[in-house]
């Protein structure tokens, strides 16, 4: 069985999987956008504004899902010392920040016509904003610590501490009196929204998930290359120009 903890093996996997996941993402977005914009009916109260939900809800789910992936990777770094765990965590943080910013902006664009305000400091909105700040903090942590090993451990600890915010986001609408509505899909007793709106939402959520998987693989590949460059630079500096000895683990896999 291939050892995907080995960066060279992982790069081979990415080369095979990337065209597949990219193609699946494009098809899912094509179908999802068609359903969301042309098939799903306007809401009886919200009218056309409900179409923002097909972006807002999947991006909110992804904001939390990416953080869970990062938390698992943080455990991989601290507990199992998996060689690719810190690369996976570092690669996911900007993507999580991107999905969270999309969630916040689309939520604001929905809030203005429906609530009459761009923003309120209620528990759900505030906890998602805190998640965005945590993502930025993790990205900054990676940037400021020069030693990658130390940076990985600190980022992993920070990520696991920040994971306490995920259940707060999820249950904020139950624990506090919020302007944000309570869950209508993942709830006890099943979804409360009509199937004609649920299906476009599910397809868009799958498209967002597939997009994340594709971009995450690409970003992990970038991290592997970044490490390879760092090692090569150090080897070149220590061995002198033209005499660098490069382990195969940092070499390009066979095409």
């Amino acid at each position, binding site marked *: 069985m291939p050892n995907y903890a*080995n960066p060279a093996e992982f790069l081979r996997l990415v080369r095979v999987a990337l065209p597949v996941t990219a193609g699946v993402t494009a098809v899912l977005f094509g179908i999802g956008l068609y359903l969301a914009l042309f098939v799903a009916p306007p809401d009886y109260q919200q009218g056309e504004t409900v179409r923002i939900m097909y972006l807002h809800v999947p991006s909110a789910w992804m904001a939390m899902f990416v953080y869970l992936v990062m938390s698992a990777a943080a455990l991989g770094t601290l507990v199992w010392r998996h060689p690719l765990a810190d690369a996976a965590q570092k690669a996911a943080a900007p993507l999580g920040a*991107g999905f969270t910013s999309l969630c916040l*902006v689309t939520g604001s664009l929905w809030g203005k016509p429906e609530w009459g305000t761009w923003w309120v400091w209620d528990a759900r909105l505030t906890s998602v904003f805190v998640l965005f700040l945590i993502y930025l903090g993790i990205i900054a942590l990676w940037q400021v610590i020069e030693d990658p090993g130390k940076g990985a451990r600190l980022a992993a600890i920070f990520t696991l501490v920040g994971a306490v915010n995920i259940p707060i986001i999820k249950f904020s609408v139950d624990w506090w009196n919020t302007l944000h509505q309570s869950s209508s899909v993942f709830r006890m007793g099943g979804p409360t929204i009509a199937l004609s709106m649920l299906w476009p939402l599910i397809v868009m959520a799958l498209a967002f998930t597939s997009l994340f998987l594709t971009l995450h693989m690409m970003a992990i590949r970038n991290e592997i290359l970044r490490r*390879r*460059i760092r090692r090569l630079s150090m080897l070149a500096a220590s061995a002198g120009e033209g005499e660098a000895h490069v382990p195969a683990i940092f070499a390009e896999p066979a095409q």
Partner: protein
Amino acid sequence: MSDPNSGFVIAAYIVALVVIAGMIVATIADYASLKKSLAKLAARTGRHVDDRDERK
């Protein structure tokens, strides 16, 4: 869409396009830049490979 709030819907989809395209372009541009740096470095150092480290 004749809804008075159509502008908000259109703005949301434009923002989504910009954010998603931004993530894709940033990732691809980073890859291209890293490949370029790696090729330059490899050409400068004339690297060779050691299989002993393959499974470390």
